[in-house]
């Protein structure tokens, strides 16, 4: 590996950090609303807990997904290191731009979808330059990833439905459900939310650091701990500097997300995400938790579920991938054409 010019190094790390920050501020925060809502923990406690567990998940279980995103889609070894550098930075910039726009307009866009699309855009750019052929791109991996995007919300939904049904079965036997909700179940939510923060860390950290890890020459090899740690820190900073707003909003709005429902949704979502992390699949954690919440709703957990929002999520999903592919592709081609 040739020495990396410091400008690129700093720019890459800054973009990675920004992505990590945005994940912490939104995606991780989306999963933590129920703990604050159920008043099991204070905001400060939630942030500390989520920070520690997400950090552990990112650092020790984040490498599989990182390998898929960084080196699993585009055949990095076959490409000139300079092109890899510019390509990965273009991908990172494209994903960061799109996520910024989406966040500004409060669109429910996934960071995982954005980064995967952006890496594919870089691959297509290489194919255009005849550095690689179109067939060299791992379409099989892409198909697997897209399948995981569809399966993960449904997995979360089915599992949450079943868990909540089992929960109801036990609640039926109790004479004092409110007492259970404000007692033992509240503590279970602390556990389930921690589990969720851990599993989110293992999947989401890749979205922030995979392109940079590839630039630094770690594709297909073990990802060094320091890069994962760097991503973990970024997520934690995002959660603590901005994510609390999202947590507040959710805690206030989802007053119906009682401990028994929150627990069911958390466990289902965390397990689903963790399974996909171990398969190395970058799924949308936010979509999975929404699938899980709907699962609880279908098991009679909620009086009303807003399917209009679900439609919006699906549209965002369909728009994100082509937009990010195009953005990343154009940035890459443009930068190379400029002689950078």
């Amino acid at each position, binding site marked *: 590996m040739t020495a990396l010019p410091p400008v690129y190094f700093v720019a890459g790390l800054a973009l990675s950090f920004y992505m990590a920050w945005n994940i912490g*501020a*939104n*995606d991780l*925060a*989306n*999963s933590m*609303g129920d703990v604050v809502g159920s008043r099991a923990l204070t905001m400060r406690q939630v942030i500390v807990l989520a920070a520690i567990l997400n950090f552990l998940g990112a650092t020790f279980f984040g490498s599989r997904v990182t390998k898929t995103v960084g080196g699993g889609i585009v055949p990095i070894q076959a490409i000139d290191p300079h092109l890899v550098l510019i390509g990965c930075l273009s991908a990172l910039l494209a994903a960061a731009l799109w996520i910024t726009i*989406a*966040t*500004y*307009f*409060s*669109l*429910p*866009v996934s960071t995982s979808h954005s980064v995967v699309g952006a890496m594919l855009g870089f691959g297509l750019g290489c194919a255009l330059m005849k550095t690689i052929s179109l067939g060299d791109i791992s379409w099989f991996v892409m198909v697997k990833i897209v399948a995981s995007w569809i399966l993960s919300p449904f997995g979360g939904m089915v599992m949450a439905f079943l868990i909540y049904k089992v929960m*109801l079965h036990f*609640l*039926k036997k109790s004479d004092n*459900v409110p007492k259970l909700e404000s007692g033992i179940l509240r503590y279970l939510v602390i556990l389930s939310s921690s589990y969720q923060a851990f599993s989110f860390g293992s999947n989401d950290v890749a979205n922030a650091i995979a392109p940079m890890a590839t630039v630094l020459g770690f594709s297909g090899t073990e990802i060094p701990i320091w890069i994962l740690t760097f991503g973990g820190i970024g997520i934690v900073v995002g959660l603590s500097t*901005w994510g609390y*707003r*999202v947590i507040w*909003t*959710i805690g206030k*709005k*989802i*007053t*119906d*997300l009682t401990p028994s429902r929150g627990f069911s949704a958390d466990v289902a979502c965390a397990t689903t995400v963790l399974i996909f992390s171990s398969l190395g699949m970058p799924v949308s954690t*936010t979509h999975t*938790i*929404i699938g899980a*919440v*709907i699962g609880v*709703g279908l098991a*009679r*957990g*909620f*009086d*009303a*579920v*807003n*399917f*209009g*929002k*679900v*439609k*919006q*999520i699906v549209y965002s999903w369909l728009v994100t991938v082509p937009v990010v592919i195009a953005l990343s592709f154009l940035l890459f081609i443009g930068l190379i054409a400029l002689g950078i």
Partner: protein
Amino acid sequence: MGRRKFTRTPMAEIVRRSPFDGLLSHNEKAKECISVLKDAMEAYCDGKWERFEELTNKIIKIEHEADLIKGNIRAHLPKSIFMRADKSTFLDCLREEDAILDYAEDAGVWLKFKRNVIPNEFREDFLKHLEKVIECVGAYDNAVKEVKALVRGAVRQKDREKAKQAIKETHRKEWEADEVEKRLTKNIFSADLDPLSIFHLIKVVELIGEIADHAENAGDRLRMMFAK
């Protein structure tokens, strides 16, 4: 939404507040309205006309506020909202609840049209009738709470029984109000009053009776929401 907050929070919008909360806050207005109607009736019987005018105007104002709540509930139930209870039954229930307020307002307005001197013997029954109507709407309110818990949780057979009982209580109170209404109507007809006054008072009793009828109807709609 005003200022953009630079956040993506799909989680916050996926679960809607329970529509039953809307039903309850609308019925809160209905309860308030009837309780003011009772005060207005008292002022009418006592010939305190200034106070009477003030209270009937308050009834009209409360009815209008309730209309806004009703509109808000309807506007926030688009097709894309998946609801546990059947949506058209829910909206029927809201319409019946709204009729409670409409008749309370009509009764107040009808009273305004003519200033009778109410014989003392009727005063007690008029207030008793309203008392029963208030209890009936209160029983309905309780039924909404029970059905809300039931529709959501579907937890135990006991909860189902409780909801059924709460609706039955609404029926019972309506029946009690009916009994007072019959007695009162009969007494008014046999009283030594001019025909115009009789017509006026009979119609007032009828309008007040309608309030309980619609609380009962609303209760029946609630029952349909958890029919097996």
